[in-house]
């Protein structure tokens, strides 16, 4: 496809290229597979799955904002059983690499999810979403509290065995993201996913009430890219050996390269797919051209080049 070696790795999981989907922005793959073969992706990151089916939040669930959007999906999904019976086998059959994202409402739930995934074949890695601001758990977000963040990753680590790398997905809505990163690394995370959405709100200009059914929502899209680059840069300079799956407002190859230069080993494309189903493949080819333009023979050589 190109003369540049795009292969990358997140801990001991290897991928042919660094462009992934973002959890919750590609459902479980069937929807996008009409537009391009999922094998074009470094990996399909599935929508965060919970233990039981979940209806999510009331509508409206979205608001467009300047160069971004708010969502308050509330982790709607069919639950792990259906996922393992139906969605995952379908996905693996396409030949795509699968990163499975999980989310829970309690530490135990994460543990139970990890046990369900233990021994499941074909999964490339587990992304542990501890940062969704939408979960109705007294408004508390695991990723905003070092102790609970640590507890979740410890539980997942113990329950899942050593089969898949564990990637802990962090929230930018914290005073010190490196502190949380340190906790989850100590707890056994093999890699980090940075960043989840920022907590935001839109007031409906007509009713003057919060527009979203869930009142607050998660801010994503190009608007948050500078926050993502900063978080990745900070965490990579503190923990240079811990691989990062970067995300946040990537809409072009140049955006992806920013995150990679800041320290990401791979990049998830989320909101950009909502305005262009082909965004992930376009971004991959733009990235390849840019790497060549900058004289990189291998993607790996570009990871973290913004430092030092």
């Amino acid at each position: 496809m190109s003369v540049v070696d795009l292969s990358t790795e997140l801990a001991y999981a290897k991928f042919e290229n660094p462009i992934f989907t973002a959890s919750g922005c590609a459902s479980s793959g069937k929807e996008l597979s009409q537009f391009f073969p999922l094998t074009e992706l470094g990996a399909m990151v599935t929508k965060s799955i919970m233990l039981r089916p979940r209806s999510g939040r009331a509508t409206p669930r979205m608001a467009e904002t300047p160069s971004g959007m708010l969502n308050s999906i509330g982790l709607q999904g069919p639950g792990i059983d259906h996922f393992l019976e139906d969605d995952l086998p379908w996905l693996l059959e396409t030949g795509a690499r699968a990163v499975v994202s999980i989310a829970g409402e309690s530490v135990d739930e994460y543990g139970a999810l990890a046990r369900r995934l233990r021994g499941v074949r074909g999964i490339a890695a587990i992304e542990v979403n501890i940062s969704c601001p939408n979960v109705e758990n007294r408004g508390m977000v695991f990723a905003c509290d070092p102790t609970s963040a640590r507890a979740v990753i410890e539980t997942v680590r113990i329950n899942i065995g050593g089969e898949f790398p564990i990637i802990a997905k962090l929230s930018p809505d914290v005073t010190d993201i490196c502190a949380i990163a340190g906790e989850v690394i100590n707890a056994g995370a093999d890699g980090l996913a940075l960043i989840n959405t920022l907590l935001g709100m839109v007031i409906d200009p007509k009713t003057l009430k919060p527009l979203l059914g869930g009142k607050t929502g998660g801010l994503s899209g190009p608007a948050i890219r500078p926050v993502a680059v900063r978080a990745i840069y900070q965490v990579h300079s503190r923990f240079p050996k811990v691989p990062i799956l970067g995300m946040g407002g990537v809409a072009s190859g140049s955006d992806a390269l920013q995150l990679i230069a800041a320290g990401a080993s791979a990049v998830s494309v989320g909101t950009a797919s909502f305005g262009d189903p082909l965004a992930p493949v376009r971004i991959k080819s733009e990235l390849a051209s840019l790497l060549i333009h900058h004289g990189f023979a291998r993607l790996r050589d570009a990871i973290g080049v913004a430092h030092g």
Partner: protein
Amino acid sequence: MPINPRATVTTARILSNRKVGAYHHIALEAGEVGKLAKPGNFIAIAVGGEYSAMPLHRAFAIYRAKADGVHASTVEIIVAAHGKGSEWLTKQSEGSQLRITGPLGTSFPLPAEPVNVAIIGGGYGSAPLFDLADHLKSRGCRVDAVIGASTSSKIFAPLDGKRTVNSVTVTTEDASAGVQGRVTDVLEELIERQKIDLIYSCGPMAMLKAVDEIAQRKQIPHLVSVEEAMACGIGICMTCVLPIRDANGTIKMSRTCIEGPVIDSECVVWSGGIPEGTWGAP
């Protein structure tokens, strides 16, 4: 069944863009999209151009799609300037290019027998119904249309559309055209008079719900095309959901961009919100 089975992402060129009452009628040269579209399908359009602050798709019902002609295919849409994105769209001039994705969503199922059909359109909701009427007529159906809006400029009822159907009743709330009132004010009488067997409706949710009350009462099958705020239009964002009853009676929050927009009204839970007993409800 695969999801988005016939959809592609296409660079479409604007063939014409003209004002029709309160709306803009935009014709697009649309690659394969027009060839594969069925009545009721919609397209998703990226808005704002290269320097856009608007990252999300906008959904528009296909008013007409044609495979023939000088262009690979054409797709026509009727756009009401609502917010920034649709407003931008109405300002685009002939020759400019749009990224469109389609055809998307479910289409109107057609009756096997030649029956008596009513099509009910509210505002720009009438747009997809005339193409549907064409198909119904060619199957020998009688088609009576009721087109309503708040005011005459918001009635979309093009001449050739009117010619397709057996009758058109227009209602406006301000009496600026047709009968004063709402579509539901004339519907019951029409049902009686024409012995309506089947209703298709497209328009604001409140109208669909009101039409459905009548359809239910009269026990007439009713197919609705719903409109929920959509971010992606292709099933990947989960924003466009409505509580829908499936074949087993289970209510699920279903994506109206792929399980809709056309849905059998029997499956729609009109109460909105997340009804008690919904699958996975808290």
